């Protein structure tokens, strides 16, 4: 009876406190990781920019070649969907949002009468699609947390060879764009075929060179042929880095919310527990008082004062 409810509540508070410690630690880890991931994403920008600049200058120099990565299919029979998710959960809506966008791409492909081909990065998306009986054609894990260029190159090569072999006629890239710590957005981009060099150049972002006569070695075509695969890799690498930063930012936010909730729950439960304890004390006192009264009715009346005074003190405390 006495203290039963109190003990239960005390145990619950203890468990919520432990959970809070964990979510708090995860929040702090995610906070440091997001900064690092952000720096890496920023450090990767110059390369992507420069590659774009070179393509721009090539376009200005009039190099337009028939490269397999530029192949425009007359009829799209199979759409490749590259989806970048994370290996671990507890990142709020991060995974579900990007997976939903990828599933929409698959449905789009189907409604166009085309087949689909899923290229999945991260355990979460694999689990989702495997559970729903989608065919996953390529799966990579262990890279989304902290992607290296080597990882990006491996996946990009897989995708590029699928495209050049004609196994897919179009590839969409679904990832989470990192806008700022407070804002990330699921984005779908056309990955392959690459737009013609003119379009890449027009989208720009690179430094405009001195327009006009460039010298090329060995030849504009050879440069472009060597350059385009690198461009594909750099784009995927950029998307991977942004996704990693977004994952950590989302996790940080989710864990902060969890920590705040735990705090609130602890306050609420402690109040409840205090009330239960107070109730138990009051009940106990009432029992003593009534017991004493029962005895005191036979006894002398001054003995009642001895008992009642400490009782009053106890209730106030």
């Amino acid at each position, binding site marked *: 009876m006495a203290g039963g409810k109190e003990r239960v509540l005390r145990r619950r508070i203890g468990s919520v406190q432990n959970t809070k410690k964990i979510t708090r630690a995860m929040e702090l880890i995610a906070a440091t990781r997001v900064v690092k991931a952000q720096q890496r994403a920023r450090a990767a920008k110059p390369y992507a920019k420069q590659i774009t600049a*070179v393509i721009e200058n090539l376009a200005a120099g009039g190099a337009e070649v028939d490269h397999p990565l530029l192949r425009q299919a007359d009829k799209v029979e199979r759409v490749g969907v590259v989806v970048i998710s994370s290996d671990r959960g507890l990142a709020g809506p991060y995974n579900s949002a990007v997976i939903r966008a990828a599933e929409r791409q698959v449905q789009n492909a189907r409604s166009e009468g085309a087949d689909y081909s899923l290229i999945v990065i991260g355990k979460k998306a694999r689990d989702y699609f495997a559970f729903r009986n989608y065919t996953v054609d390529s799966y990579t894990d262990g890279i989304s947390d902290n992607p290296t*260029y080597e990882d990006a190159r491996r996946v990009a090569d897989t995708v590029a060879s699928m495209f050049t072999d004609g196994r897919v006629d179009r590839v969409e890239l679904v990832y989470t764009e990192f806008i700022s710590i407070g804002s990330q957005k699921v984005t779908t981009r056309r990955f392959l075929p690459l737009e013609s060099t003119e379009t890449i150049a027009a989208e720009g972002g690179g430094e405009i060179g001195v327009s006009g*006569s*460039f010298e090329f070695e*060995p030849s504009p075509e050879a440069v472009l042929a*060597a*350059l385009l695969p690198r461009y594909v890799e*750099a784009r995927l690498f950029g998307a991977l880095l942004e996704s990693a930063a977004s994952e950590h930012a989302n996790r940080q936010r989710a864990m902060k919310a969890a920590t705040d909730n735990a705090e609130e729950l602890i306050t609420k439960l402690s109040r409840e527990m205090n009330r239960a304890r107070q109730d138990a004390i009051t009940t106990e006192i009432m029992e003593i008082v009534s017991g004493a009264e029962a005895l005191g009715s036979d006894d002398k009346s001054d003995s009642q004062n001895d008992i009642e005074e400490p009782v009053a003190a106890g209730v106030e405390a």
Partner: protein
Amino acid sequence: MTFQVELVSPEAISYSGEAEMVIARTLEGGDIAFQPGHVPFIGVLAVWSVDVIRPDGNRDTIAVHQGFVQVVGTRVSVLSDVSESSADIDVERARVAKGNAEAALATDRDDTESAGALARAELRLRVAGAEA
């Protein structure tokens, strides 16, 4: 007059500084040296070193495992997946890699992967100033 030289890898800008002259080796084209005022140039680099001659006359040698070089005005950018300065090179590892590649080539002459590995290992050893 000097150049602004940048070595850009996908992960970071790995080298940046002033230079009087930059020497690189392009695919098929052989060695080429750039000085300020060079005509705009884009080239594919071979597995070879890029030498940067600084204004004070010192020379930085960097191993570049393929990539591109772009010269525009007073800027030289070298884009490469892998570039290493002599301080970054693990001589022992390069020696071992060279031995392995040579052994693989001895059994299979057309092993292009091993040929590439051999070229990279030899370049590393040369840049690090260690003879095999």
